[in-house]
Each structure stands twice: as structure tokens, then as C-alpha cells.
């Protein structure tokens, strides 16, 4: 099953990164209902839509690629039971909030179980740097941002990832992170300010380097 990813339209024209994968016309909630009624293909579509997001979100939370794969797997397996038991109620919020909340709780459980201190993970490092100088520069910048994100408090990190990559609204993020909207606003703002600070320093460093 091949599903092309498409980018969600930016709401203020300033956020091209927010996106929702999947080209099937059914909404997430419709797919969940179809799966509950026995359509296994609907579950496959949900995995296609949310597989990469679950892996990424878990990876940013636990900072361990292998553990993130286990968490993503557990999340979908758990989703099977929850949906079959009628545990998802669309009236209480979108599926995305419900699902990412589940991923986050599984991540917290795994981290507690392993009792491992969060590390600046190798899995968050960029791919091997190859290519043109501009591309290398872009990779370096991306690596800088990810390093900064990795140092953020857990829920700030979760909030900015869900916003930047999965395009969740503040309300949806609040549901996913068991918080209120005002708090989510603050978390995202703080995360941006931290990223901006590091970004500005990197730019200043680049300018000095090129000026020499």
C-alpha cells in the first residue's frame, strides 16, 4: 500500500511544515469507525497516516530510535483493542489528539520502566552529511534545531513537535498532552524562543565565518 504524503495548508501562511499524511478521502474518525465495524483496510490506512508521526513523536519523547519503534508498534496494537472496544469517542476530540496522547503515555511508561535518564540521542542526529555545501548547511541547521528541541522540557518538546510536524491545533495539542490551551500556547512560544536563540547564534557565527 503506497500513500503519498501531502502538506496541510498553512493556516496563517507562515507554517509550511505542518502536514497530515494520507490521500484517502475518509477522515481519521471515519477510518476508526470503519475499522471498528470490521474493515481491516481502514486500520492499514491509519497506520499509513500516523505511522511516521508516531515514530517521530515517540523518538522525540524518548530520544531513542529503537525504543520509538517499539512504542509506535505498541500504540497501534493498543489502538486495535481500544477501537474494537469502542474506546474512542469522536465527541471528545479528534483522533489525532487521542492517538498522540496514547503514544505519549506509552513513551512515559517505557521510560519509567527502563528508568533511563533522557539522553541527547544519536537517533536525533541528522543523516550522514553528503551533498552540496548549501545542502550541508541546511542539514547542519536542522541538526541544530533538533539538538535544541532535544533539550526542551518534555511537554514543550511534545507540543512543538505536534505543532510543527503534525499540524495539530492548540486545542488538539492540549487534549493530547492533558493540558489547557493557554499552557500549550506558552509551551510552544517558549520552544520557539529557545530555537530562535540558538538559530540566531548560528547565523551570527556563519556571518562571522563568511566575513573572514
Amino acid at each position: 500500500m503506497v500513500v503519498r504524503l501531502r502538506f496541510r495548508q498553512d493556516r496563517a501562511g507562515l507554517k509550511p511544515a505542518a502536514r497530515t499524511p494520507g490521500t484517502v478521502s475518509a477522515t481519521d474518525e471515519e477510518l476508526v469507525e470503519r475499522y471498528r465495524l470490521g474493515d481491516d483496510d481502514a486500520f492499514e490506512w491509519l497506520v499509513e497516516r500516523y505511522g511516521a508521526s508516531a515514530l517521530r513523536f515517540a523518538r522525540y519523547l524518548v530520544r531513542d530510535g529503537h525504543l520509538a519503534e517499539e512504542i509506535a508498534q505498541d500504540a497501534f496494537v493498543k489502538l486495535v483493542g481500544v477501537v474494537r472496544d469502542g474506546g474512542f469517542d469522536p465527541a471528545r476530540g479528534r483522533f489525532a489528539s487521542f492517538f498522540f496522547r496514547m503514544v505519549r503515555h506509552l513513551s512515559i511508561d517505557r521510560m519509567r520502566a527502563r528508568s533511563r535518564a533522557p539522553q541527547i540521542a544519536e537517533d536525533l542526529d541528522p543523516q550522514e552529511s553528503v551533498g552540496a555545501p548549501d545542502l550541508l548547511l541546511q542539514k547542519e541547521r536542522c541538526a541544530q534545531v533538533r539538538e535544541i528541541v532535544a533539550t526542551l522540557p518534555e511537554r514543550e518538546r511534545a507540543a512543538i513537535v505536534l505543532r510543527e510536524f503534525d499540524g495539530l491545533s492548540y486545542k488538539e495539542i492540549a487534549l493530547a498532552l492533558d493540558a489547557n490551551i493557554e499552557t500549550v500556547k506558552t509551551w510552544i512560544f517558549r520552544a520557539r524562543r529557545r530555537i530562535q536563540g540558538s538559530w540566531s547564534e548560528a547565523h551570527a557565527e556563519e556571518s562571522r565565518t563568511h566575513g573572514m
Partner: protein
Amino acid sequence: MECNDLQLLLSCYADGECTPEEARRVRDHLELCASCRATLEQWTAASQAWAAEEPEPASLRPLHARIEAELWRQRASARSAPIRRARRGVHAAWGLLATAAAVVLAVGLLYPSATAEQEAREIVQIDQGNREEAMRQRSLLERLRLEIAATTLRAQAAGVSTERLAELDREAQSILAETQSLEQRLYVLQTRMALGALSPTSRPRGDRPAPGGGR
């Protein structure tokens, strides 16, 4: 509006989370404030750089496979669960039986009831007597039947016909019935005599002297 006051609202504006009124205020401020415009541009650039190089899984097939394998494992485990429960149930039942037997044995050995034991012994004795009497009765009947059968065989061996044997048997039964009747009659007579129902001074009519025998 001061820039510091606007920062949080600027972040909301970047995400399209402002009310129309808030968005208007932000736009008005951005027109006048180069610093806030620069901030917004940096946020956007950082976001784009981050998203552009974020590694994505080349394929979700491994994830699909992992999920499918785990679901199969769970289903297989669920299918075998009733068997495991049944086995556990049998083991538990045997355990209970063994425990109960041990308790009964321990109570019987450690706390014997003298009264109950005596009663049980008497019941066993009575039962034994009854059983012996029954065996005697049955033994007598069996012996008589065997004797009759042996006599019949002997008679047949001696050339007595079946019809003659049946006639002899009827005569025997008649004699037996008459004998029993006479035995009962004698028993009743002896009983009445013993009770004095008959007067010892009374004489039979034949014992009286004949009239005019002395003339």
C-alpha cells in the same frame, strides 16, 4: 504595544490561532516593528529547516510487519488462553481434592469420636448378623432347589416320564399342603388344650352308660 507583550501573541499568529481582533493587532504591530518581523522570519526559517531535513522512515512496511506480528501473537495467545485456564482449573481441582482429603484424614486421625465409633461398630455387627441370616435362608432355599433338581434328574435317568414326574410333583405338593394343614390343625389343638379351652372333666357322649342296662 510593546514587543515583549506581543511575543506570545506573535507565536499564536504564526500558528493561525489568534482571534480576528488579535490577528489585526499583530499585523498592525508588524507593520511598524522590524524586530518582530525578524523574529517571525527566524521562526519560519527554523521551522522550515527543521522540517526539511527531519528523517522520515523510508517505508512503513517494517512497522506494518511489527504490528501484524504482535497482533498475531496476541491472538494466538488469546486462543490458547481457555486451554491454559482449563488446565489451571483441573490442577486447582486436584489441589482442592487433595487438600480436602488431607483435612478429612487429619481430622479422622487426630479427633476420633468414641460415640460415633461405637455406633458404627454396632451397625456393622447388626448388619453382619442380618447378612448371615439371609445367607442361611438363601442357602437353605438353594439347597432344597438343588435337591429337587437332582431328584428330578435321577427320576428321568431311571426312565420316569416327564408327565409322570409332573403328576408325582402335584401329589407331593398336595401331600405337602395337607401335611402343613394337619400340622397347623395339631398346633391349634395343642394350643387350645394348653389354654384349657377344653374341660378335662367333660366326657364324650359315647362314654355314658346305656339306659335300663341293670334291669
